[in-house]
């Protein structure tokens, strides 16, 4: 089992969610986060002074999937979340040791 954490553009959330549902991925969590990557952020200008807003609002999606779904889910996120411009985000994949469904007590792949 893998956890896929995707930092995506806020405005791409709806597209990414629809793409994930299409590939059979039902469960996901999201958080509104602020972050920065290589880009230098946005320029804002107030009363004659420039400010660089480095930390930009992004959406963080967390999805846990079975190993055989990983590539499909990652492809779906890339295709639906990409604009080609700087700031499209990143995907992180890590191992999950155990998953437990609280309602039934099921464990492992059945609980994903």
């Amino acid at each position, binding site marked *: 089992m893998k956890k896929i954490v995707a930092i995506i553009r806020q405005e791409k959330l709806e597209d990414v969610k629809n793409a994930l549902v299409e590939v059979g991925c039902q469960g996901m969590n999201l958080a509104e986060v602020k972050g920065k990557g290589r880009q230098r952020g946005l320029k804002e*200008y*107030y*009363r*004659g002074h420039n*400010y660089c*807003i480095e930390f930009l609002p992004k959406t963080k999606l967390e999805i846990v999937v079975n190993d055989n779904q990983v590539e499909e889910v990652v492809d779906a996120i890339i295709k639906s979340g990409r604009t080609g411009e700087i700031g499209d985000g990143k995907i992180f994949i890590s191992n999950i040791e155990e998953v437990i469904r609280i309602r039934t007590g099921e464990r492992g792949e059945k609980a994903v």
Partner: protein
Amino acid sequence: MEGILNAGDTSWVLISTILVLLMSIPGIAFFYGGLAKKKNVLNTMFLTLIAFSIVTIIWIAFGYELGFGNSISGFIGYPTSIMLHDVGINSITGTIPTYVYIAFQLTFAGLTAALISGAIVGRMKFSAWIVFVVLWTIGVYIPITHWVWGGGWLMNMGVIDFAGGTVVEICSGLSALALAFIIGRRKDRSLLPHNLGYTVLGAGFLWFGWLGFNGGSALTAGGLAASALLVSNLGAAVGLLTWVCIDIWREGKPTVLGAISGAISALVAMTPAAGFVNADGAVIIGFFAAILSYIAISYIKPKFDYDDALDVFGIHGVSGIWGTIATGIFAVVAVGGVSGLIEGNANQLLIQLIATVSTMAYAFVITLIIGKFIDWTIGLRVSEKEEIEGLDTHIHEESGYRL
């Protein structure tokens, strides 16, 4: 002054009084609140609310009589009673009840005190602000009001200040500068408005109320009020567009904060001039108000490195100075009965300059003394921890937002 009561005049000044109240609450509260940081939004708004309330009590208790009572050597009036006991309900000032005049003047005093708060947001103790408002109203605002409007030395000299270029604008601007010098710089000096929408809303209330501020200062419901209202609005429009043009020229894009800053700076400059200039004068006054306030905020402030947080000096002080001087240049006899420099009366410009310099010096020096006194006694500034974590939770135990 005794006269015959005029119901039309009374109605207009009553309405104007409420319009001026709207400038403080909610106008300045929203204008400053939106520009402040999220963690200080309630404290910033509260500074206006409490200032207006304190000034109201002082004004009724003895402030009006100090300002408008019989003059002691042209410097200040002397009160003959407290709580307006010697002013009857049927007393008349001009063609309106004295009570209406007192109320109208009260809103000016409250507004001017509230304006100063913009210089010190995010770092002043609430208790120190309360003491400051009391001492400043008595020590700075009331004497200057007396000089210009209450029968004092500048009034006798012939100064023309229709709605408070000296009394309100220079006075608040220079007091704000003095207080900013004493209290010191904020830890985080960025001006990143947490809710510019509030600021636009506040600016709207200010513009709306300013038509009562300047229009009401005619104290009659007639052509002079209409003229003051029209030229004020014209000046504001010119100021807004001027700042937008500067923004586009300097940065390539128009900004909303720039636009409303231009409108407000022009309204400031129109304040002394409203009842004395025609539309031609208003265009020139509004145009240069935006340019001068822009220069003050963008170049003078960084050069001298003072932390006037929300640019009270840059907008009210600088445009107030310009407006007061410009009134002496562009006054036309056909509007307010006084000629300025363009009609050949250089003496009026000289009087305006004397009023400008004396108001600047008095407001700055006395505010410095008051500020120093408070700093030595109860302290002006909050602790570093309170400043960094925000005044809303530390001083008021409230949060502006729980989203």
